[in-house]
């Protein structure tokens, strides 16, 4: 199995570590590769879009002319997991909480409205234990860092976890998006869940 990580900026190494952990736990042979150029998109079985600054990552995606190619593959069923900035880049509609600025030109594959910096600045960043029924009864430590929130979802989107009024983990067929950082929790269950549905 070949897992690509969109490797422009952000928590790339942390995802690589967790994916390797998850694959070891499942005894699955997997290669983790960086996706930067258009040609890197060929031959991957799944994609991870890590957290980072969504404005920076989007800028570089456009620079490398990768948006259309990725969008096409995701629409044709490439499994993808986006965390934090990754979730923003997958969403159809994106707005910034404070400035109200709309972000356009993202992948626009997840039928959802994401609000950037929803919980506020770094001072308001937090960690909390969430119940995520699809990965078991044990609570999952979710780390929210200047996190966005998903506030509206379309018909085909399942909400797997929520925090307060907002949705924090959603799934739409092969697309998994979290507004928190499962790669920082030391708990590979969410990555394992992703690998398991990639395998199918």
């Amino acid at each position, binding site marked *: 199995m070949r897992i690509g990580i969109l490797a*422009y*900026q952000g928590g790339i190494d942390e995802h690589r570590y967790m994916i390797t952990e998850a694959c070891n736990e499942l005894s699955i042979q997997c290669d983790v590769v960086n996706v930067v150029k258009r040609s890197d998109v060929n031959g991957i079985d799944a994609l991870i879009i890590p957290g980072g*600054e969504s404005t920076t990552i989007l800028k*570089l995606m456009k620079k490398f002319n990768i948006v259309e190619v990725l969008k096409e593959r995701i629409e044709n069923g490439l499994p993808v997991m986006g965390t934090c900035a990754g979730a923003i880049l997958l969403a159809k509609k994106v707005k910034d909480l404070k*400035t109200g600025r709309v972000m356009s030109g993202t992948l626009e594959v997840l039928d959802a409205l994401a609000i950037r910096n929803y919980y506020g600045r*770094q001072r308001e*960043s937090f960690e909390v234990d969430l119940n995520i029924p699809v990965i078991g009864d044990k609570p999952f430590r979710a*780390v929210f860092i200047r996190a966005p929130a998903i506030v509206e979802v379309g018909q085909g989107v399942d909400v797997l976890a929520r925090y307060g009024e907002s949705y924090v983990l959603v799934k739409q067929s092969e697309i998994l998006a979290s507004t928190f950082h499962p790669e920082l929790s030391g708990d590979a269950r969410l990555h394992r869940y992703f690998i398991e549905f990639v395998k199918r």
Partner: protein
Amino acid sequence: MWNTHLIEIGFDKIVEFFYRLADVADRLKQEGLYFRYGPERLPEVIRVPQKGTLRVKYGFPIFQKYGVCMDVTNVEQALIAEEAGAVSVMVLDKLPYDVRASGGVARMASVNRIHEVMENVTIPVMAKVRIGHYMEARILEALGVDMIDESEVLTPADEERHINKWLFKIPFVNGARNLGEALRRIYEGASMIRTKGEAGTGNVAEAVKHMRTIMNEVMMLVYLSPEDRMKKAREYGVPYELIDLVARLKRLPVVNFAAGGIATPADAALMMWLGADGVFVGSGIFKSQDPQTRAEAIVLATSVWWNPDAVLEAQSMIDEAKSMMGIDIRRLKPEELLQVRGA
């Protein structure tokens, strides 16, 4: 790729390590001997969201990795930086180049100016405080900046001590010239390290020296016997366990950026190649004559530094004639060096 970029033990284990270091303090607290020099323990299960925890403070810089933080002095520059793809901006009253030129006491930037930038950009906003100045740091914490740089570019408020950063909910970044300085700052609670370089010179040589020194000293630890690691711990003034952790990771346990004198995309790529996780660009952008394209070019070169074609493209976006003039460090008098402040 440079192998120091690989984190061989996970983020979570690093966080756990620092909690364990703080265990003794927690036990002493029960006996009435209380001091806070480490992270505060969390309950096993967190029902009420916890802010300002170690995971949150160490996590923030992770999402700055492979990015560029740019020094700005007003909203207009901050918007240019954001548009160019900066991962954050550092708000200053004067760019380091001008701090150097104007002399006098350099202090924290105007609160109103920082606030104005915070209101107008969506990326994180950082600001500098003087070394050891707890109250400037408290003010920035209350204002809500995303990260505080306890910086040698400003005139130190305490010539012998740094801030005990464990007392704050906001992450700190500190400068270092060598591994000893870096580990002392981490032990004081810094969530991120950057090389000091020689700010405001446009000369990358000192940043190279500091990054090389840190990397060499890390690799040396790997091969040292326990007795010699203990000697190093005493020399550096940090716990033995921290030395052991660094030897095992073969890198600093926190994100490590390059700073001080970076002026071109090639400079940024060089620092990444030497093992930096990202770069701070101070005077290099807004003291050049092509700030907008230069900012974009440095973002590109930092992100894909390992790809020569991309770095070539980045470098061709700028014109060397428009780079900041720069200062030969050998022409600076010893008292003009900023890097010697706060060891």
